[in-house]
């Protein structure tokens, strides 16, 4: 658990945690590519579960 010296410090920390790192030259397409990746990831995960496939790398 984090200990903060003031509510402001806590707020700043929370804001920093939510800061997004992206490709600054191509934010929208980078975001769309991530959506496509996540969809493919969930689809692959679903297929593995239903077909009882490899679970070597469940993160991928």
């Amino acid at each position: 658990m984090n200990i903060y010296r003031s509510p402001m410090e806590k707020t700043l920390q929370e804001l920093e945690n939510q800061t997004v790192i992206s490709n600054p030259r191509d934010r929208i397409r980078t975001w769309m590519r991530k959506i496509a990746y996540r969809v493919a990831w969930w689809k692959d995960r679903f297929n593995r579960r239903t077909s009882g496939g490899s679970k070597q790398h469940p993160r991928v």
Partner: protein
Amino acid sequence: MVEHLDILIVDDEPIVGDRLSSFLHKDGHRVESFTEPTEALARLRDKAFDVVISDIRMGEIDGMQVMEKVFEGSPRTKMVMITGYATLELARESLTKGAFDFIAKPFKLKEIRRTIQKAAAALGEPARVTPNDAAAI
């Protein structure tokens, strides 16, 4: 668990390295950031880092090549691959080649913190991964 890590960041976008290094520095880690992969590789020849965070697409030298060089010099180093061009194939290739984690951009800073915490925990444990693990994927 190793608390304060030596971390090297290589990303051709200066803002990515700046943001990540200031965030991780606040967490108490010693961070060095490079925008040129060749400079990062030269530094990696001098020093073994606990964690290397590398972008994958960077021009002449890509993140996969950085990872190979890192493991040649320091097999215990945890590689975290970040990319704005994520695909399942790229993620699989990264993890098969030994990456500790694969993170698709855009991501929140707290995701990197979580990964670094996991890497710190793994660095404190005896090695369990064998080449057969990767071959079995």
